[in-house]
């Protein structure tokens, strides 16, 4: 198990009811964090157009996470 801080934005923040949580997760990759928090919050957003950052750097879903990491989950963006 790893202790991770997960930050949520926009739609994900509304699904989570909080802008961040510190969680004990059995997660190896960013994708695991996405999937586990999605089921925790009953969200149905597909991973397809979502993005992730780890410790304030954009990352791939296959990136590994380690104890103490801050994982930022971004729903589909819509600037402009």
């Amino acid at each position: 198990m790893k202790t991770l801080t997960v930050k949520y934005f926009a739609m994900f923040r509304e699904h989570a009811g909080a802008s961040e949580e510190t969680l004990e997760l059995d997660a190896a990759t960013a994708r695991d964090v996405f999937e586990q928090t999605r089921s925790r919050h009953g969200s149905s957003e597909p991973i397809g157009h979502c993005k992730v950052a780890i410790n304030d750097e954009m990352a791939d879903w296959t990136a590994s996470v380690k104890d103490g990491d801050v994982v930022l989950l971004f729903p589909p963006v819509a600037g402009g």
Partner: protein
Amino acid sequence: MFAISDKDIVVDELRDQVKNAGSGGVCVFEGWVRNQNEGRTVQRLEYEVYAPLAIVEGKKVIAEAKQRFPFLEASCVHRSGLLEIGDCAVWVGVSAPHRDEAFKACRYIIDEIKVRLPIWKKEHYVDGDSGWVNCERCANV
């Protein structure tokens, strides 16, 4: 220069930033808040921005544009917070010796900013409802 601002965009100040004696012209794109989207009447917009990463990524986009379409000056500002109909949500200006680079770089910057930066748009409708808007290019991928 790339910036996120929670205040009104002052177009004249930004235009001055892209002036250069070597530039033969400037290409500007202004994104405005419109009153309709997908058949619904919009009352106002709310932009949520994760500024630390939006700024890093926005600067990257401008650097990429400069490599592809060599220009002299570029500037871009994106709004955060609540905006009313007609407000300027994003401003991109590129000045270059010749218009071709200016047009192409301006187009590249706005297109990439819309799909890459951690920015989310919530529309508030006149019927009191509201909803997050999906990225338009993403929906077609």
